[in-house]
């Protein structure tokens, strides 16, 4: 699911000319064989088609309707128009807190994770002995299921846990991460940084495919390693950075398990984000209408940020084909 957004757009574009070309020509009548083939096509895709209607299109329409009602699933639904949206945006302080918390988390954790990922990939791209071992060590955390990660980090982030021990060595008095409203979001960001290795592996393989000649030429021209990184490596890996940025943002806006297990949104809603809020409204308070409205607002936020990222990408993402 997650890997495809970038491809999906490309694939749609590839389909378009074929369709418009087909539109001009008169549709030929299908032969008997063609009709049989078409029947088999619809038969074979029927699992997807049924799933699409039953689990996606139907629920989506239901969700739009639900978001316009007040409903607890026990008493009849009451149509309230846009009240749920108005309530979320103008009267619910927790909604705004959750929204800003989600922004905070996404806009810090994703760029930070990417910066760490690029830095590590650049280190591993050198002629390092034991490269495979380092790479595995850095990638390993991404394989741990989120629930297990959360359990371990409950301990790592404990007031007298290893993180504060480490800070103590550096002479810093560490905070009570998960119990302190100002430090609970940074704590979640620390947890997300543990998974930076996922991006590193993708970035590393991208760095591997940069032609060696670029670096030879740069060295002859007298460019130092830092200059070479910013003038050769970085531009060449921007498509992968962009891909990871989009996927990371979409994932970060939907953060749930870590929050639910570590803090349940507390203390004082300081770590409450959009999906845990939605979950609580729906499955603890049975505010199905209001929760549906939050889901659509989340959808708008995600789509908006994706669109902004695509907009700005023209300025900084480098595609080989543009040069030719």
């Amino acid at each position, binding site marked *: 699911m997650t*890997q*495809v957004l970038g*491809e*999906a757009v490309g694939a*749609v574009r590839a*389909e378009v000319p074929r369709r418009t070309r087909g539109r001009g020509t008169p549709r030929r009548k*299908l032969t008997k064989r063609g009709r049989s*083939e*078409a029947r*088999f*096509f*619809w038969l*074979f*895709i029927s*699992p*997807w088609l049924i*799933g*699409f209607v039953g*689990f996606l299109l139907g*629920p989506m329409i239901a*969700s739009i309707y*639900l978001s316009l009602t007040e409903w607890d699933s026990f008493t009849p639904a009451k149509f309230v128009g846009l009240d749920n949206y108005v309530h979320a945006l103008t009267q619910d302080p927790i909604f705004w807190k959750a929204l800003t918390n989600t922004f905070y988390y996404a806009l810090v954790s994703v760029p930070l994770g990417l910066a760490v990922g690029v830095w*590590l990939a650049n*280190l*591993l791209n*050198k*002629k390092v002995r034991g490269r495979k071992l380092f790479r595995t060590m*850095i990638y*390993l955390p991404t394989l741990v299921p*989120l*629930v297990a990660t*959360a*359990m*371990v980090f409950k*301990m*790592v982030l404990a007031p007298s846990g*290893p993180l504060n021990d*480490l800070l103590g060595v550096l002479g810093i008095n560490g905070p009570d991460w998960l119990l302190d409203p100002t430090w609970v979001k940074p704590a979640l960001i620390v947890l997300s940084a*543990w998974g930076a*290795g996922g991006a590193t592996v993708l970035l590393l*393989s991208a760095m591997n*495919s940069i032609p*060696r000649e670029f670096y*030879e030429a740069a*060295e002859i021209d007298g460019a130092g*390693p830092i200059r070479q*990184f910013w003038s*050769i490596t970085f531009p060449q890996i921007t*498509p992968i950075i962009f*891909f990871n940025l989009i996927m990371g943002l979409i994932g970060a806006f939907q953060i*749930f*398990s870590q929050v639910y297990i570590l803090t349940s949104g507390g203390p004082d809603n300081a770590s409450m984000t959009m999906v845990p809020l*939605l*979950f609580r409204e*729906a499955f603890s308070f049975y505010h*199905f209408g209001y929760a*549906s409205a939050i889901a*659509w607002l989340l*959808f708008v936020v*995600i789509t908006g940020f994706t669109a902004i990222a695509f907009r700005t990408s023209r300025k900084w993402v480098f595609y080989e084909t543009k040069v030719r």
Partner: protein
Amino acid sequence: MATAIQVPPVAPGLPGQTPSQDRFTSARTLKAFRASPATYGALLVVSTIFFVPFVLMVSIALSSDATSATNMFTIIPTEFNWSNFTHVFTATGLPVGRFVINSIVIATLSAVGQVLSSSLVGYAFARLRAPGKNAMFIVVLATMMIPAQITMIPQFLLFKELGWVNTFLPLIVPNFFSNAFNVFLVRQFVSRVASELDEAAQVDGLGYFGIYRRIILPMMWPILTAIGIFTLTFAWGDFMGPLIYLNQEDMMPLALGLQYMTSTSNAMQLPPWNLVLVGSIILTAPMLLIYYFGQKYLYEMNVSGGSAGVK
């Protein structure tokens, strides 16, 4: 510039100057790829920090109940209570063995469902011709952009109406209807396979289902393995789905059961952290094994996705 072209950049016969694509096997390492002590230092520090949670996980899992009760854990293991690995199944008051079996059942059936359905649908999109096919494929791609939260509530209401709450069905059944990403992967994979074989089979009188069953399916196994691993991994670690649909102890998968284990104890009594972390190790270990044995198939999936991005 002109002079540079006249001088041959590579003098043939000189050692270490043969043009090589692999920058690491050539004798002279370019400045950009030279590892300094600082490089090693940074890598050592980072990989150690990244590894600390794993060591801590093992350390807590092996600590005694007394240590666990006071919450005074050391990073490096000092106690080795291997019996915790059996106690986790007996001493928590929760059916942890059931948790594991439930996880296996849910993950396996989900993977089977995805493999069967997406192979069939993907084959149809790759090989069969029908009016409206391209439009349908655009719909497939578009559905990948809908976040799960939108459909979560109506789906819950639907499954509740069907009486599926507290069964595995809401977690398993949707997988038998394929998902867009997997359909896309299969379609890309099959499109890349030459179609002579199935055309020949058609001439010989094999029907469309026969072609799928006898010709395409055996060829698809690399991508189907990848899809299987991907679904297995997701279903095994999934927390939100079980949290919504399962609230009876003996129906919970391990991921949910672990969280349940930490939340049931009251304020006077700390959760049995050593056993919770044993559970976390049991939850993590299969993922490490699957990664170790399945690496090449997962790579296959990235390649077959056909995006410049994931390669």
